[in-house]
């Protein structure tokens, strides 16, 4: 009976695994001809998982009913909200990938399957309430991601990205494992609840090291400074749809995992990790902003932008309150919309030979040659800079509101002042598109799926997005409540 309930709770994961395996067989028998059909099937599977998970969030489920396999796994509203974002972002990446990879002659049938397994890994990550589950999910996701980064085999940069990602990812996994073994050594348990109880009171030096190593390993996954160095290279080298995927779904998964680990497992030691998080937050904001200024490649620039955004998200974690957690979920949702919008817009730009346009200088005068794409991209940029009335402002607003409510006014003030540096390079993109003379590099038509994604994400981040705030805020509050209730 107990086992059956557990199986019911992991229904989305089971669906993902089985369909991943079946589609893998299909890919093996049918070959690359079937790659489009498999992509469509994968999107359908993700959609089905989306609707499997949605009720959990809407009902705001939490507590013992959501615990599966005797505390290894928890399918609560918090995990559900993260999963919804992950499935949506993975689906978006799957929609834009086939055309792009076709043009590079590297569309193969295993691409959608790998995406499914990555989504499965992330889904396990966000539900993990035990260090073992955490590690299995993380590695399943990472292994798929390493292959995806190197997916464009003919492209040297893609191979380099994959290799770099693999080496540094393995190092980070090592650091994380080391931290986990220290945690186990000092607490005698791998379950988050057990760790939490064991770490109450004064923290020993060894346990402190455990916390630091675990956080460092996770900081690598969310590319927070000072573990961000891989991000620009990997983002630049990986095929653009894969970059769009990296910048969204794994970020969501790793951030929610970090929230669970720090608020649940290490929740009693928040004073120990708070300063680390504050440092990482401010350093990410500043480095992400300064690093982006000199970039000429849009994907590198967006990589630094994602580092910058992670900094803002971490401010919510530093607050360490339910409001902070809720604000982080809201920010993540808006961040996913902005990132999908920006990458779809970038993918829609191709030169006369069908090669992707990635050089920022080639965007010159886009407002006159491709006015709608330019307007959407400009909206995304202003939104990323956090200028009201665009929706990106709301993400920053709730995060800083949470920080102020947690009496961290100084952190909020420094963080928001540093966001002005970031505004500079977002403005640069707008300037190139609107003020410069047209370069007429980007030509080529796009299909309805790209337009649809671009328009939807632009509508979400436009001022109309504010209509979503009661709904989005309500869901995020439920998610945060379930996270804190679990404690």
């Amino acid at each position: 009976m107990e086992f059956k309930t557990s199986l019911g709770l992991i229904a989305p994961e089971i669906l993902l695994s089985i369909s991943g395996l079946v589609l893998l067989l299909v890919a093996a028998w049918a070959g690359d001809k079937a790659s489009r059909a498999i992509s469509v099937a994968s999107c359908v599977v993700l959609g089905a998982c989306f609707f499997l998970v949605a009720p959990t969030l809407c009902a705001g489920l939490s507590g013992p009913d959501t615990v599966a396999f005797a505390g290894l796994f928890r399918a609560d509203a918090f995990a559900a909200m993260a999963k919804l974002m992950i499935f949506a972002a993975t689906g978006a990446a799957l929609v834009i990938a086939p055309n792009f990879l076709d043009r590079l002659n590297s569309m193969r049938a295993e691409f959608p399957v790998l995406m499914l397994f990555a989504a499965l890994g992330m889904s396990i990550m966000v539900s993990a309430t035990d260090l073992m589950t955490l590690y299995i999910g993380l590695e399943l996701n990472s292994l798929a991601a390493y292959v995806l980064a190197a997916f464009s085999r003919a492209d040297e940069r893609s191979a380099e990205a994959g290799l770099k990602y693999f080496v540094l990812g393995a190092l980070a996994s090592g650091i994380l494992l080391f931290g986990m073994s220290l945690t186990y050594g000092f607490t005698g348990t791998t379950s988050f609840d057990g760790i939490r109880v064991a770490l109450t009171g004064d923290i020993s030096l060894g346990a402190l090291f455990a916390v630091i190593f675990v956080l460092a390993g996770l900081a690598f996954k969310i590319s927070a400074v000072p573990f961000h160095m891989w991000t620009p290279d990997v983002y630049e080298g990986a095929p653009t749809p894969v970059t769009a995927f990296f910048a969204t779904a794994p970020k969501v998964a790793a951030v929610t995992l970090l929230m669970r680990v720090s608020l649940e497992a290490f929740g009693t030691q928040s004073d120990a990790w708070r300063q680390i998080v504050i440092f990482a937050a401010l350093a990410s904001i500043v480095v992400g902003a300064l690093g982006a200024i000199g970039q000429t490649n849009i994907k590198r620039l967006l990589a630094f932008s994602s580092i910058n955004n992670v900094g803002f998200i971490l401010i919510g974690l530093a607050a360490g309150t339910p409001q902070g957690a809720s604000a982080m979920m809201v920010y993540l949702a808006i961040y996913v919309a902005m990132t999908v919008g920006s990458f779809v817009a970038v993918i829609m730009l191709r030169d006369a030979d069908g090669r992707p346009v990635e050089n920022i200088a080639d965007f010159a005068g886009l407002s006159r040659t491709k006015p709608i794409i330019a307007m959407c991209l400009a909206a995304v940029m202003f939104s990323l800079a956090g200028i009201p009335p665009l929706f990106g402002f709301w993400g920053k607003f709730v995060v800083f509101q949470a920080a102020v409510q947690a009496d961290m006014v100084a952190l909020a003030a420094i963080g928001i002042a540093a966001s002005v540096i970031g505004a500079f390079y977002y403005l640069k993109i707008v300037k190139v598109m609107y003020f410069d003379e047209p370069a007429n590099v980007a030509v080529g038509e796009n299909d309805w799926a790209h337009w649809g994604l671009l328009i939807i994400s632009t509508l979400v981040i436009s001022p109309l997005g504010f209509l979503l705030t009661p709904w989005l805020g309500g869901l995020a509050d439920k998610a945060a409540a379930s996270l804190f209730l679990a404690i």
Partner: protein
Amino acid sequence: MEGFPILSLMLLVPLAAAVACLFVDAKAARTIALIATLVDLALGLVLWAGFDVGGAQWQYVERAPLFAGFTWALGIDGIALLLIILSVFLMPICIGASWNSITKRVGEYMAAFLLMETLMIGVFAAQDLYLFYIFFEAGLIPMYLIIGIWGGDNRIYASYKFFLYTLLGSVLMLIAMLWMVNQAGTTDIPTLMSYDFPAQAQTWLFFAFFASFAVKMPMWPVHTWLPDAHVQAPTAGSVILAGVLLKMGGYGFIRFSLPMFPIASAEWAWLIWGLSMVAVVVTSLIAFVQHDMKKLIAYSSVAHMAIVTVGLFSFNVQGLEGSMMLMLAHGLVSGALFLCVGVIYDRLHTREISRYGGIALNMPKYAMLFLFFTMASIGLPATANFVGEFLSLAGIYQVSSWAALICGTGIILGAAYMLVLYRRVVFGAQVNADAAAMPDLDLREWLMLGSLTLATLWMGIYPESFIAPMRQDIVKLEARLSPDAPQGDSRLVMGDPQPTEEVQAHEGAH
């Protein structure tokens, strides 16, 4: 008019027109923009006519809960009313000023201007703290595009500088707002205006708001974005920048800094006076040596706005009324001066003072109107500036005779640089043939400058029309400020004061 959401309508008309402008050709866009701004002007006049002077402090109040703690809260008092009237009055003139001079991407240009109008009215009408911030901050986007796309040669630098300077100022204000709402538990501006924040916190809050408004105003030494932005912006952009955007800083002081943080305002008044005194003298002297007409007027704006700030921080009725009058007057007069520059810039495409000369011969009507606005800028009695400057200086004299003395020199220096500008452009020998061949004003330019002339004269000759709506708001503000207001150094003390007389003198000062 009770119950009819006229303020929302005023916001909606330009917004809808802005969207429409994006989809039509140049000619239609101009027409739509002109009609929309005229409709808004008409609505503004209805607003003014229906405003009950001496009635409730907040009128035309609209309240609708929006989302997540935000409220669609609009409403105006006399102060906001006058600034809204100023905005809607200047907008059709701006559209007129861009009629022929803007030839590329007209639809987008008009859309940006109309969006600007929506946001300006929104700033003055918002009664929710966050709503105010959204309007205040969103104005950066259209202005950035206006300067960057249709500006002069160095427009990119100017647009960046404008954007980043003002953004840095306002984000700190956002943190302060978050703290205030957290503390006071409301986002309602009228409630916050009478909320007493702890004295210690007031200082921090004051400086966070100061960072934003001082940049917007702009006060010395954070004024440096203004000359660049003015010089590079198209004529209408300069008009709206000088006419309305700078007033947002003054409005911010009078709506937020003074009533919400009276203790900190009084405590740090010396800083404002000091910066303003420096600003008046320094920027006037800088204006004196400019070769570029727009830059000269931009620096003169900084000097005039410094007199506004001393007026605001004089904590008495004269000073506050004077600074409000000066803001309105400066909106008209500096807007008109930028238009005057625009008129000859459209003909010769240079702002170099030395490229002109003796144009009184071929443009007598222009020379007449330019002279009028030059005199108005100097503060000649019977023009609007005189009322404002006189009252502001009278107000500051009661609290600091030194500030009054030094700021008073601004009028003398203003006369010097404005008269020199006028002499070099309009009088003298006609050294440049192309300048001598410029045609005089056409009907469109007559209408724009003529309406500004009438408004300036009206405000100068019968200022009561403008002071009446805001009188009771100023009195309320003064009452709020008076407990903490700094003691003046210029109170008259007669002979050997007896204790009783001292009490009387003290009473008299209030």
